[in-house]
C-alpha cells in the first residue's frame, strides 16, 4: 500500500492532530498562489497555427500524462503536480496548440524530478519506497513513448521556461488538491474508525480523473478535495451516515467551505464521476491519435490473403458452372483486390494469371534471356515499400 506523503513529510499512519492542523493552515494560506486560472475556450475558434488551445485539447494532454504516470510507476502526486504546473503556465501564457504536448511533457518531467529530489531528501521514508519509483524518466524516453512531436532538447528548454515563469522554488512542493485530500484523509483517520475511512488510493485515482477535466480549475483546491470526500462518503447505512455527516461538517467548518459553493462543486464532481464509475469510455475528443510503427518484415506479411490477387470464379453447389445468371458472390475479403470473374467468360478475356497463346510463344522466345522461374506475373506480387501504418 503506498504510504501517502503530506507536506510536513511525516507518515500519516501515526498522525499528530496538532501537526496536521498546522499543515492544513499552511496549505490554506498557500492555496491561492498555486491556484490555476484556466480560461480556455471550449471550442476552437481558429484552427491551425494561430488557433488556441481548447479545453478538449488540454484534457487530451492531461490523459496522456495520466497514462505516463502509470507507465513509469509514479505516484499520483507527480501527476497532480504536473497538471498544476501545466495549468498555471497556461493561465499566464497564451500557448499555441502545437506547443501543448511539449508543455505537458516538460511539466511532467519537472514534477517527476522535483518529487524524486524531495524523496531523496526525506531519507527515512526513501527506504520504504521501492527502486523504480526513484528513477526519473529520461526526456528522450518520454518523447518517444508519448509520441509527442518534439525533441528531448525541446523538453529541456521548455522546462526552464516553465520553471522561470512559475518562479518555482526547488524545495517548494505545489499545493494541489491532492495535498488537501491527503490532509483531510489524515484528519479523518484520527476521528473515524478504520472501517469507515475511505481508501486513499481509490480517492487519488478519482481525483486524477477530475483534474483531467479542465472545469476543475474553477474551484479552489481545498473545496474540490472536500467535495470529492463528500460525494464518496455517502454510501453507508443511515446510522453511520450521521456520524460521517458530523465529521464532515466539522471539517467543512475548519476549511471554511461555503454551502452554495460546495453544492456547485459537488455537481461538477458528480458529472465527471458518473461516467467514470459507470466504466464508460472516455470522450472521443480526448483520445490520442496513435501511430503504430511496425518493422519492415512484419509489414510485408500482415494478412495471409493479401497475396491472393485473383481467385477462381465461384461454382455454385447443385448448379452447373456457366449456368449461373447472377454475378458470383463477392467476398468480404479484400474486396478491392479479389474480383471474381463472371462465369462463362471466354478464355482470352480472363485476367492474369492465365496466359494467352501470345504469352506462351513470347515466353518461350524470351526464356533464355530471363529467368526461367519468373513468378511475379502469376501472383501479381509487387515490390512493397516499407511504411508506417
Amino acid at each position, binding site marked *: 500500500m503506498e504510504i501517502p506523503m503530506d507536506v510536513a513529510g511525516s507518515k500519516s499512519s501515526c498522525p499528530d492532530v496538532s501537526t496536521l492542523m498546522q499543515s492544513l493552515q499552511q496549505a490554506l494560506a498557500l492555496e491561492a498562489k498555486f491556484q490555476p486560472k484556466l480560461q480556455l475556450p471550449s471550442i476552437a475558434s481558429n484552427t491551425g497555427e494561430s488557433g488556441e488551445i481548447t479545453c478538449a485539447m488540454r484534457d487530451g494532454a492531461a490523459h496522456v500524462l495520466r497514462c505516463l504516470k502509470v507507465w513509469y510507476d509514479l505516484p499520483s502526486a507527480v501527476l497532480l503536480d504536473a497538471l498544476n504546473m501545466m495549468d498555471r503556465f497556461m493561465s499566464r501564457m497564451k500557448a499555441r496548440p502545437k506547443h501543448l504536448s511539449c508543455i505537458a511533457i516538460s511539466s511532467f518531467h519537472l514534477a517527476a524530478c522535483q518529487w524524486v529530489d524531495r524523496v531523496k531528501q526525506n531519507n527515512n521514508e526513501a527506504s520504504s519506497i521501492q527502486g523504480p519509483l526513484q528513477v526519473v524518466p529520461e526526456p528522450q524516453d518520454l518523447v518517444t513513448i508519448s509520441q509527442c512531436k518534439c525533441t528531448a532538447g525541446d523538453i529541456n528548454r521548455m522546462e526552464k521556461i516553465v520553471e522561470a515563469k512559475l518562479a518555482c522554488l526547488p524545495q517548494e512542493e505545489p499545493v494541489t488538491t491532492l495535498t488537501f485530500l491527503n490532509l483531510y484523509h489524515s484528519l479523518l483517520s484520527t476521528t473515524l474508525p478504520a472501517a469507515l475511512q475511505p481508501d486513499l488510493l481509490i480517492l487519488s485515482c478519482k481525483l486524477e480523473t477530475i483534474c483531467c477535466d479542465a472545469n476543475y480549475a474553477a474551484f479552489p483546491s481545498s473545496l474540490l478535495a472536500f467535495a470529492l470526500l463528500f460525494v464518496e462518503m455517502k454510501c453507508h447505512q443511515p446510522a453511520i451516515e450521521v456520524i460521517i455527516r458530523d465529521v464532515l461538517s466539522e471539517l467543512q467548518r475548519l476549511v471554511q467551505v461555503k454551502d452554495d459553493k460546495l453544492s456547485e462543486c459537488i455537481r461538477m464532481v458528480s458529472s465527471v464521476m458518473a461516467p467514470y464509475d459507470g466504466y464508460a469510455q*472516455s470522450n472521443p475528443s480526448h483520445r*490520442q491519435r496513435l501511430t*503504430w510503427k511496425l518493422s519492415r518484415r512484419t509489414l510485408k506479411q500482415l494478412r495471409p490473403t493479401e497475396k491472393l490477387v485473383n481467385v477462381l470464379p465461384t461454382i455454385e453447389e447443385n448448379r452447373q*458452372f456457366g449456368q449461373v445468371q447472377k454475378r458470383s458472390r463477392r*467476398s*468480404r475479403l479484400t474486396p478491392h483486390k479479389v474480383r471474381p470473374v463472371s462465369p462463362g467468360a471466354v478464355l*482470352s478475356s480472363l485476367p492474369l494469371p492465365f496466359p494467352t*497463346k501470345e504469352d506462351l510463344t513470347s515466353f518461350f522466345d524470351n526464356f533464355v534471356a530471363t529467368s526461367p522461374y519468373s513468378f511475379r506475373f*502469376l501472383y501479381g506480387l509487387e515490390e512493397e515499400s516499407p511504411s508506417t501504418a
Partner: protein
Amino acid sequence: MSAGPLVDKIDPFKRSPKKKPKKSQGSSRYHSGSEADLQPLPLLKDVPAGEQEELFIRKLRQCCLGFDFLDPVADLKGKEIKRASLTELVDYITAGRGVLTEPVYPEIIRTITSNLFRTLPPSDNPDFDPEEDDPTLEASWPHLQVIYLVYEFFLRFLESPDFQPGIGKKVIDQKFVLQLLELFDSEDPRERDFLKTVLHRIYGKFLGLRAFIRKQINNIFLRFIYETEHFNGVSELLEILGSIINGFALPLKVEHKQFLVKVLLPLHKVKCLSLYHAQLAYCVVQFLEKDPSLTEEVIRGLLKYWPKTCSQKEVMFLGEIEEILDVTEPAQFIKIQEPLFKQISRCVSSPHFQVAERALYLWNNEYVMSLIEENSAAIMPIMFPALYRISKEHWNQTIVALVYNVLKTFMEMNSKLFDELTATYKTERQKEKKKEKERDELWRKLAELEISHRRREPSAKTNAVGGVALAKQSPPTLK
C-alpha cells in the same frame, strides 16, 4: 526407354560396344517410330467443311506421338509439325462453331492422355525448400512448350460454347480425373496452374463427378497431413476448394462441416504451411462467412494447433486470426474471447519480436477494437498483466512503443477498470516481492546457522550441512 543396342541373337548377353545412353531425367516419353508417320497434313482452314472433322481427328492422332526432347536435334521436323499442329488446333477450337462433334471427344481425350499423363519423375532435390529454391522444371523446354499447348487446347475444349457435358462425361470419367489429380504433384508451377483451371472447369461442368473429386482431394490432403508432408499442389487444390466453398448452399451439409474440421484445420499443422497459407486462410474465412456458427470450432481448432516452436508460423496464425476476427459476429466473439486472448497475451509476451509485434498490431484494427470494447471487462484483465510486465522488460523498443499504444487504448476504453487492474497488479507484485524477501531472509538465517554450527563444532562432519553450504551459493528465486 532408349532405342536399345542391337542384341546379338547368338549371345543375348553380349555387352554392347556402344555406351548406354544416359537415363532420361525428364518424363518426356518419345516414340522411336519412323518419321513417315508424321507427314505434314494440310491446314484445316484449307479443307472443305465436310472433311474438317476427319482431318481434325487425324491431326489429333498425330499429336498423340511423343518425341525425345532430350536430344535437341532428333526428329526436328516431327517436333515442329506437332507443335504447329497443336497451335493450329487451339485456334480451330476457339474460333470454330460446330467443330466439337461426338466422335471428336474420345480422340481429344486420347491426345491429352498420351501427352499429359505420365509418372512424374522423382525429385532431383529431395530437400527442396519451396521458399528458397527455384523448382526444377522439366529437363527439356521445347517439351514444356508442347505440354502447355496441350493444356491450353484442353481448356479451350472445356470452355467452348459447343462443349456438351452430356457427351463429355462418357470420356471424362473417374479414372481420368484420378490421373489428372496425380499430376498436381508436378514441380512445375505453370503446369499446376493449368491443372487448377482444368480441374475447376471439370468440377463445374460435371455434377456427377463432384462428390468423387471432393473425396479424392480429401484423400490427397489427409495423406499429405498424416503421412508424407509432401505434395506440391496443395495451394492449387485449395484455390479450387475456395471457389467451391464460396458456392455452398445453406444450410451447410454435414460433409462440408466435417471437411472443415477434419481436413482444413489439420492442414495448419504441417511444417510447410507457408506454401499454401493464403489459400487455406481464404477457405477458412469463406466457411465462416457462410456459417458463422462454425467460428467457435475454428478458433478452438487453431488454438489447438497453435505453433509452439516455430515463430514464423505463429506470425502466420496471428494474421489468420485477424482475418477471422474481421468476419466474426459479436455473439460468436463472446464464446471464444477468453481462450483466444489468453493465447494472444502469451504471444504478446513472446521474446520473438515479430510475434509480439503482430499480436499487438491487432489493436490497430477498428472492427477488432469495437469487439474488444464491448467486452473490455472480460478481456482487459487477461491482457493487462502481460502488457504491464512487457512495458518494463522487453528488449525491443518497437514493441515497447506498441505496448504503450495498447495500454493507452485500454485506458481510454475503460479508465475505472484500468485503474483497478493497475492497483491489483501492483498489490500482487508487492506481495510477490515480500515473499521473495522473506525467502532470502530465510536462506540468510540458515547460512548463519551453518556458520555458527561450524564454529562450535569444527571437527563435526559437514555432510549434514553440506547441502546447505552448497545451496548457499545460489538461493533459488522464484520468478
